[in-house]
C-alpha cells in the first residue's frame, strides 16, 4: 500500500498527463458535486441521465467539424433534449419519465449512428462513452476550471433563488422568480458539466458523479450549504482515489472513479450517524426493539 502510494506520488511528480488527470478529477468532482446537489433535490436524476446521453450527437458533430464547436454542439443537443422532454410532457399525456426515456435513448442512438457512419475516422467512441482521462489537455483543464468557477459563483450569488425554486417552486413562482428559466439554465449547465466531464468519466458514467456524491451528502446533513460542501468533497475524493486506483491497477479511470463514489455511498448508507441503516438496526438492537 505504502509502496503503491509512493509509486503514484512519484509518477505524479514526473508525468504531466497524470497531473492533468488528477486536476481534472478534482475540478469535475467539485463541479458535479455542486450541480448534482440541485439535480437530486429537484428530483431530476433521470433528467440528468437524459441530458448527459443527449449530448452525444453534439459531441460527435463537433468532432467532425473540429474542436471549436465542441461545447456549442453538446449544449445544443443537450438543450434540444431538455426542451423536447418539456414539450412532450406539456403537449401530450405522455408522462415525463417516458418522455425522458424516449429522448435519452433516441438522442444517444443518433449519436451512435453518427459515430459508426464515420467508419475509420479518428472519433473514438470508447473514449467519449467511458472517458480518457490521460488525454486531458491544459486547454481542457482551463475550460473546466472556468466553468467550475462560474458555476460556484452563480450558486453563491443566486443561492436564495436556487433554494426557493427548488424547495417551494410555487412560492418561487408566486413572488415572480423566473422558475422556467432557472430550470432551463440548469439544463444547459448540465450539458456543460457533461462535456467537461467527458474525458474524466465519459458520457455514460457522468450521471454517477452528479448523483452519487450528492446522495451521499444528502444522507449526512440537514443543511443545503453543508450538503454542497460535502457533495463536492466526496466528488473530489472519488476522483483522486479513482485516478490513483486506475493508475496502480491499470483499469478504466472513469469506472474506477465511479466505483469509489459508490463505495463511499454504500458505507454512508449503512453507517451514517443519523440515517444509517446498520446504525439504526444496532440502535434498535441495543434498546431491545428487535
Amino acid at each position, binding site marked *: 500500500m505504502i509502496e503503491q502510494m509512493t509509486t503514484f506520488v512519484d509518477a505524479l511528480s514526473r508525468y504531466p498527463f497524470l497531473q492533468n488527470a488528477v486536476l481534472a478529477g478534482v475540478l469535475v468532482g467539485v463541479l458535479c458535486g455542486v450541480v448534482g446537489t440541485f439535480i437530486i433535490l429537484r428530483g431530476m436524476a433521470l433528467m440528468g441521465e437524459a441530458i448527459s446521453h443527449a449530448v452525444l450527437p453534439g459531441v460527435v458533430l463537433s468532432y467532425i467539424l473540429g474542436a471549436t464547436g465542441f461545447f456549442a454542439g453538446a449544449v445544443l443537443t443537450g438543450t434540444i433534449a431538455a426542451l423536447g422532454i418539456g414539450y412532450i410532457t406539456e403537449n401530450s399525456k405522455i408522462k415525463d419519465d417516458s418522455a425522458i426515456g424516449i429522448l435519452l435513448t433516441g438522442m444517444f442512438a443518433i449519436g451512435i449512428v453518427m459515430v459508426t457512419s464515420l467508419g475509420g475516422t479518428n472519433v473514438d467512441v470508447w473514449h467519449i462513452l467511458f472517458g480518457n482521462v490521460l488525454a486531458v489537455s491544459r486547454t481542457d483543464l482551463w475550460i473546466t476550471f472556468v466553468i467550475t468557477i462560474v458555476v460556484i459563483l452563480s450558486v453563491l450569488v443566486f443561492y*436564495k433563488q436556487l433554494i426557493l425554486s427548488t*424547495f417551494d417552486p410555487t*412560492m418561487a413562482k408566486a413572488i415572480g422568480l423566473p422558475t422556467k428559466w432557472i430550470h432551463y439554465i440548469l439544463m444547459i449547465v448540465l450539458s456543460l458539466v457533461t462535456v467537461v466531464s467527458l474525458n474524466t468519466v465519459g458520457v455514460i458514467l457522468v450521471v454517477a458523479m452528479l448523483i452519487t456524491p450528492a446522495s451521499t451528502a444528502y444522507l449526512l446533513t*440537514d*443543511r443545503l450549504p453543508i450538503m454542497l460542501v460535502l457533495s463536492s468533497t466526496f466528488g473530489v475524493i472519488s476522483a483522486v482515489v479513482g485516478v490513483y486506483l486506475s493508475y496502480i491497477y491499470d483499469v478504466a479511470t472513469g469506472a474506477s472513479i465511479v466505483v469509489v463514489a459508490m463505495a463511499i455511498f454504500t458505507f454512508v448508507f449503512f453507517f451514517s450517524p443519523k440515517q444509517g441503516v446498520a446504525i439504526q438496526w444496532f440502535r434498535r438492537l441495543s434498546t431491545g426493539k428487535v
Partner: protein
Amino acid sequence: MTQAIEVDHLSVSYYGKTVLDDVSFEAETAQLIGIIGPNGAGKSTMIKAIMGMIPTNQGNVRVLGNRVDQVRKQIAYVPQRSMIDFDFPVLVEDVVVMGRYPHLKWWQRPSKKDREKASDSLRAVGMEDYGKRQIGELSGGQQQRVFLARALAQESDVLFLDEPFAGIDVTSEEIIIHLLRQLKAEGKTIFVVHHDLSKVETYFDTLMMLNRTLIGYGKTNEVFTPDRVSETYDGNVARLSGNQNQVVIG
C-alpha cells in the same frame, strides 16, 4: 376604497378542459374568506390564477388595484403541505426567512433585520424553540405553523392559504385561526381553501363556494345554505343535524 381583489370574468382551462368558468367577484380589505368546493372544483387553480402563476383563457384580475406583477411582494402564499418535500435539507428558521426574499434585491442576502423578523414570526406561531430543527422533524401542524410564520415574515397585505387545516392537531389549528383573525383585524385580506364544512361558520365571515363556477359568494350566514352546499358538492352532501349545522361530504 380600493378592493383587495377584483376578479372579472375569469376562465381557466387545462388541456382544453375548463377548470374555472366565468368567475367574477370582489373582495374588500380586512376579510377572512373561506373557499370551499369539492375536489377538482378549481380552488387551487383560482388562487394560482389570481397570483398570476398560470395562463388564463380570459378575464381580468386586479390585486390591491394593480396588475398582479406590480404587487407580488404584497401577496403571501402558504402551500398545501403535500406539495412540499419535507426531506429537503433546510432548517425551520431558513424556511421562515424565505418570507423575506420578495423584499430583497436579486443579489441581496437576508440581513440581520430580516432574520430578526423571521424569528419574531416564528414566535408568533409558538414555534420559537424549533428554529434549528430540520423541517421534516416537525409534526404536520407544526409544519403548517412554520409556513404561516413565513407568510407573516413577508408582511404582505393579501394571503392565500391552501388547505392549512388539513390533517393537523387541534392546538395548531387554534393558533392558526387565532392568528388569521388577528391579521384580518390588522386590515389584511386572507383567502383560505378549506375542506371541513363543520367549521365554516365559526371560521369565516365571508365564504366563496366554488365548483368550476361561482355557486355562492358573500357573508357566510347568508350564502352557506343547504341548497347552495348541495349545489356546490353536486348533491353529495347529507345534512346530519339541523341545529348543529353539521354537514358531511359523502
